């Protein structure tokens, strides 16, 4: 079980090369196959996630949630997706057409790219990048621009305001996000996510770096634009903010990308702070799925419990609380590492 997926991949490559294909092309084919799998998993996952989110919100709000289509309403999201697909794609006349049209596509591309470096099991990262963590942070930062494109392209005051809020928020929260991960990097001495997972075989970084985990968790919620930090969307104030003018599939793409981001960030959190794919008995790739889903449930719990924070509070919280805390964490970690080295352990 443990090596099931890897074995399939190796079997495929050896079969292809055995048929006289150049190894380079076989690898390329494998890469394409891997991306295809990721895309399939992402889309399927989002369907499940939206259903799960509804069920969780229903549970929190003492409702049933979707329960008509299929057992426990599992086909509800499929029906909704079909509805969105068949809806008219309205592009308002005064929009900046190209930006308006491409923004959701770029958003989803960026979201899917995040999966490249996450180890989805032992030796199961698509690209085993030496600076994998940095890849995650820097590519994640690009989603800001996609929301900015959506807000600007819509040519709507609500949208622009939502986009501006989102940009200000993401730029502010990027800093504590990166800083909180630095503590882990200092301990392991690597940016490679596989190495970071391996370094947690005895104790999770969640235990060693509780402050960093807390700051990362909050900053990640903000990066994901999820409640209580869902500023760019903020339907009660900005009437869906940057996404106000979007309809049908383009709107659904934003939705898709947001959930894709959610899975990616949760998976990274599991990887960096909760031992990644490591776990007893079950195969590694099942462990990471379990951990990711548990973290996502916490995100959902937060969203459905908390009111939305105010924009200026949000900014001052990042600059006056989170960044100092993450800096303190770096200092403490540095002292700790020196101390342990000094003790000769």
């Amino acid at each position, binding site marked *: 079980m443990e090596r099931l997926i890897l074995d399939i991949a190796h079997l495929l490559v050896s079969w292809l090369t055995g048929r006289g294909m150049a190894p380079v092309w076989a690898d390329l084919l494998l890469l394409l196959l891997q991306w295809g799998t990721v895309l399939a998993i992402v889309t399927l996952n989002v369907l499940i996630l939206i259903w799960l989110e509804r069920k969780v*919100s229903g549970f*929190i*709000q*003492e*409702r049933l949630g979707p329960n008509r289509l299929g057992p426990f309403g599992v086909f509800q999201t499929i029906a909704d997706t079909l509805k969105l697909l068949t809806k008219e794609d309205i592009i308002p006349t005064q929009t900046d057409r190209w930006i308006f049209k491409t923004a959701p596509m770029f958003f989803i591309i960026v979201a899917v790219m995040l999966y490249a470096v996450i180890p989805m099991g032992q030796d199961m990262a698509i690209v085993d990048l030496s600076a994998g963590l940095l890849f995650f942070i820097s590519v994640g930062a690009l989603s800001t621009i996609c929301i900015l494109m959506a807000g600007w392209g819509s040519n709507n*005051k*609500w949208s622009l*305001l939502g986009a501006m*809020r989102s940009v200000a928020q993401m730029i502010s929260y990027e800093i504590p996000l990166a800083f909180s991960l630095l503590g882990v990097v200092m301990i392991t001495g690597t940016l490679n996510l596989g190495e970071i997972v391996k370094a947690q075989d005895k104790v999770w970084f969640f235990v060693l770096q509780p402050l960093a985990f807390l700051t990362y968790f909050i900053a990640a919620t903000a990066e994901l634009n999820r*409640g*209580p930090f*869902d500023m760019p969307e*903020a*339907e*009660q*104030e900005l*009437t869906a903010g940057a996404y106000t003018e979007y309809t049908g599939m383009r709107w659904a793409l934003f939705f898709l990308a947001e959930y894709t981001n959610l899975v990616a960030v949760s998976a990274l959190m599991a990887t960096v702070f909760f031992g990644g794919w490591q776990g007893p008995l079950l195969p590694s790739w099942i462990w990471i799925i379990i951990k990711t889903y548990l973290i996502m449930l916490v995100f959902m719990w937060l969203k*459905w*419990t*908390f*009111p*939305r*924070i*105010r*924009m*200026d*509070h949000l900014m001052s919280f990042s600059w006056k609380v989170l960044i100092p805390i993450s800096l303190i964490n770096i200092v403490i970690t540095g002292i700790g590492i020196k101390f342990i080295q000094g003790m000769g352990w």
Partner: protein
Amino acid sequence: MLQTDEYTINIGPQHPSTHGGLHAEALMDGEIVKDVAVHLGYVHRSVEKIAESRTYTQFIPYAARLDYLASNLPCLGYVQAVEKLLGVEVPERAEYIRVILGELSRIAAHMLFVGSLAIDLGATTGLVYCLRDRERIMNLFEMTSGQRLIAAYMRIGGVSADLPEGFITAVEGVISDLPKMVKEYDGLITGNEILQARCRGIGILKPELAVAYGVTGPNLRASGVPYDLRKADPYGIYSRFDFDLPLGSRGDCLDRLTVRLEEIEQSGRISAQAVKDIPEGEIMGKVPKVIKPAQGREVYHRIESAKGELGFYLLSDGSEKPARLHVRAPSFINLMVLPHISRGGKLQDIIANIATLDPVLGEADR
């Protein structure tokens, strides 16, 4: 400061957080509110004109549609105004029934206030809990008149039907659960740090400003002014009941929330006393078949509705239809201070301010 362009942003008339067809036009400098202009009339039905072509009794359902979130209260105000005009005595039992239903309506309206404030601030779950509990009160209304939301249960001279079997125990059940419900809202909504940060010190309504602009009801009491018509100018049998006036100290959004939460409990207290003391007997007083008040008689009757002072000015020309009916709508007048409490705040504060001023547009626009 960096010079930036001011721009206007239209909150409503189609907007998730305006509680109906309200249009607030905000002049913004970035996220800071420079001014707000309120435009009304999107649900204007000219109720006052309609009244002139309806008999006194026919108008009752229209009154119920004024403040449709607490429909028994505007009905009560209207029928009491007509009773005053006619000089009709209302039987004791009917008075008690009116008090019970009026206070239950107030509780229902305040519950919806708490829930809608929560959802306006982004806490979706808060609404559902409040709606769940409001449902129990709606069921009580259904027991009395068959109508849940806009019950035209009040009649000139009494109420339309006697209380059904089991109503009193059902009311007692709801009332005894009220403290538990309020505690739950406190935990989920009032106790939340983010909500407190968004409400404390936001939209401060100074008592002087509130009185000058005629703000009444919980909004006025949240500013620390002890003025409640149930105590200041008791109508019906309210002087018999023992209850406290919850008061705020800062006049901000948080006070407007906590005052209403406490009022839920106080209304529960009044209903409990009414339920305990309710006598047996008639439910309709002696009312003429055709209601024709003497010519030239006029009356201004005001009650404490869920939103504030709800007044009915009635003028009779001796016919069976009123010559003039005017509704002093608290929602309409309370909304006047929205620009004053929103200036200098943030965009998100406007939403909190609208939610805590608690206008019902059906009443404001009439």
